[in-house]
């Protein structure tokens, strides 16, 4: 299979601008299918506890599954490795207003990204808040500041986010935040939450972003940014300099980089959440790739049945053959078991 790596400087004039919000059919063709199963009803909910839109899912080192959901309130749930309900974390939290992502770091701290309160919140494994970054807009200021113009959508400030979308860490513990719907940028903080730098402006050139919606980091500290409305994954180095991009796997709503000596990149070309069957016919699949952009295979399609995906919003890939995917429009989390050994030997390269 051809590689679809585009280096900066080569393609500036070649990139066609994706219209905002358009969902792209992936350019990659003849991608081998990866056989897989979906474990039915993996997560067991107590009576009268419900998942809303499945926005975020992540596992910790013990295999516990954390689900961040937009239900009546935005809530964070923990399940054990067998799917049994363990507890709710952060009930009624000041920063829980509109979920966007949950991630678990190497020390099993739980990080949530909330695009309503504009906050990134770190919980220790016991479920207590130990750090917050960003600040919820001041309610009283809002009361007297609303002239109908709204607040500036592009604050681009060190500690103020504008609908942030995702968080990741490098080996030194530096914190990276994709921010987001308002500012098209990535922000880097040290492990204590002190601002180091931010990079990225709105646009479709290399290093520019239109809705950085999801991100993941590899062991070398590179940042993989799901540049959703530009329908490409950008790879930036640890200092937030553009390195390369992959524009052949559709619009990346969710990306994940697996751990271990051989890392893989998963990219979801999620079906849009607007119910348009024409878009659903050509989107919804998830790609498994090498970190250099080589496509290994894909699996799934748009839909609400098991093994179908209804707008995947986050992927957990701690085990590259046992994924958890959270879905917006069917209000669920699926546990996906990949069977790459069953792939045809001709596929993948």
């Amino acid at each position, binding site marked *: 299979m051809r590689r679809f790596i585009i280096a900066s400087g080569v393609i500036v004039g070649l990139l066609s601008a994706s219209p905002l919000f358009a969902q792209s059919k992936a350019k990659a063709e003849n991608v081998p299918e990866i056989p897989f199963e979906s474990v039915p009803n993996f997560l067991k909910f107590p009576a009268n506890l419900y998942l809303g839109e499945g926005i975020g899912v992540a596992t910790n080192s013990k295999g516990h599954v954390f689900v961040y959901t937009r239900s009546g309130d935005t809530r964070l749930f923990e399940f054990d490795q067998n799917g049994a309900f363990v507890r709710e974390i952060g*009930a*009624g*939290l*000041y920063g829980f207003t509109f979920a966007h992502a949950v991630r678990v770091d190497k020390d099993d701290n739980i990080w949530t990204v909330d695009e309503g309160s504009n906050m990134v919140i770190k919980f220790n494994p016991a479920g207590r808040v130990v750090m*917050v970054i960003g600040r919820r807009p001041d309610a009283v200021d809002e009361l007297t500041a609303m002239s109908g113009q*709204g607040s500036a959508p592009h604050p681009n400030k060190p500690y103020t986010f504008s609908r942030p979308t995702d968080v990741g860490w490098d080996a030194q513990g530096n914190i990276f935040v994709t921010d987001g719907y308002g500012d098209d940028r990535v922000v880097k903080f040290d492990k204590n*939450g002190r601002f180091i730098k931010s990079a990225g402006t709105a646009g479709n050139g290399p290093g520019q972003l239109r809705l950085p919606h999801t991100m993941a980091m590899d062991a070398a500290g590179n940042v993989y940014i799901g540049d959703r409305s530009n329908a490409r994954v950008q790879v930036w180095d640890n200092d937030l300099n553009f390195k390369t991009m992959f524009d052949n796997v559709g619009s990346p709503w969710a990306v994940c980089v697996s751990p271990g000596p051989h890392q893989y990149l998963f990219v979801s070309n999620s079906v849009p959440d607007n119910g348009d069957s024409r878009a659903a016919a050509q989107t919804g699949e998830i790609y498994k790739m090498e970190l250099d952009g080589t496509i290994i295979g894909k699996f799934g399609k748009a839909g609400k049945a098991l093994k179908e995906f209804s707008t995947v919003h986050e992927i957990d890939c701690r085990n590259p053959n046992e994924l958890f995917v959270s879905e917006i429009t069917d209000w669920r989390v699926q546990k996906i078991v990949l069977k790459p050994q069953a792939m045809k030997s001709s596929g993948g390269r």
Partner: protein
Amino acid sequence: MRRAFRLLTGAAALALGASLAAQTAPEIAYDANADLLKLPDSTHFGEVAGVATNSKGHIFVYTRTGAAHATVGTSRTFYKSGSRLFEFDQTGKFVREIGVGVYGFNNAQAVRIDPQDNIWVVDRGSTQVIKFDPEGRIQLVMSRKPEAIAVRAPAPGAGRGGAEGRGGPPPEGRGVGAPPPPGGAPAAAPAGGGRGPAGPAGAGIPGDSFTRTAGVAWDAQGNIYVADGQGDGIGNARVAKFDKDAHFIKSWGQRGTNPGEFNSLRGIAIDAKGLVYVADGGNKRIQVFDGDGNVKASVSPGFVPAAICITPGPHQYMYISNSNDTDSLDNGEIYKVELDGKIVGKFGRAGRVPKEFNIVNQIDCRNENELFVAELGSWRVQKLTLKPGK
């Protein structure tokens, strides 16, 4: 009695804009415990606005937490909740929540304990000052919560489409609010939103109609002084004085920069002599008045005094926080000064880890060397043990 309040190098340096931060101030050694207060599993602090101790050493925390809720499908948009009041014992063990669902708990600003161990809550959302007795029952309510709020009209081009990328109307992510009346109170506020009848801006009405209430304090007779209010260029800018039963006595001040005028009050404290210290944030000064509102002195630390506290006892000190703002981790140090303005020392800096401070909003200094600080930025209370002389 016209005491000279000058800092170190005196008026010349102050006129040049020198700040406390730029002066030589001895560093005070200290330890911090950011994990003293133990909340139940399902309960969390949000932005911690207020912290205070009572005579038994119990610790009261007033925090912005949970979401304030607004109604839809009603004649007007009503709102509720948004803040909670917790009590802990002197070891940090959770004792109870006070005021669950109280009408005026909307946007925490401060909590203070009076000499009789009554608990006074200051809420800048409801504009109210609410007095609880030591058992936690309401004894007195000052000002009135605005009845309703208006919901903002969609702004053209604000935000990016719907929540997940469909090109629908902009999300109402911040939800509520309306252009304020000229005086600056939220819509449907009681009369006196910043401008009394034909009165100067910020002078308010002769009574307990507050805006963005900033703080409360008492003199030895139990008279009540309210810092009203916190708005920067909006709402009231005055000190209002009431007797112990909340009968209005007088108020003083208006928006401005002259002596006796205010902009964005941040806190209030009273010393044993009955002098009233008002943190005049927008003017970067602490003004000192007698109990009748006559200007006695002014301290200009060169920064916004975001929180002040005066210790009890025969030798009183004042603590002043140079809190960082939302978008920086600059400054953040707390000064210890004599009541005449002379610097004793300083400690701390802005940051998110324990022993650093992130937007300190209130300081409790019942014990001179054992402080509690409430942080908006890092959602916590730290207990500080100062080690002067080390």
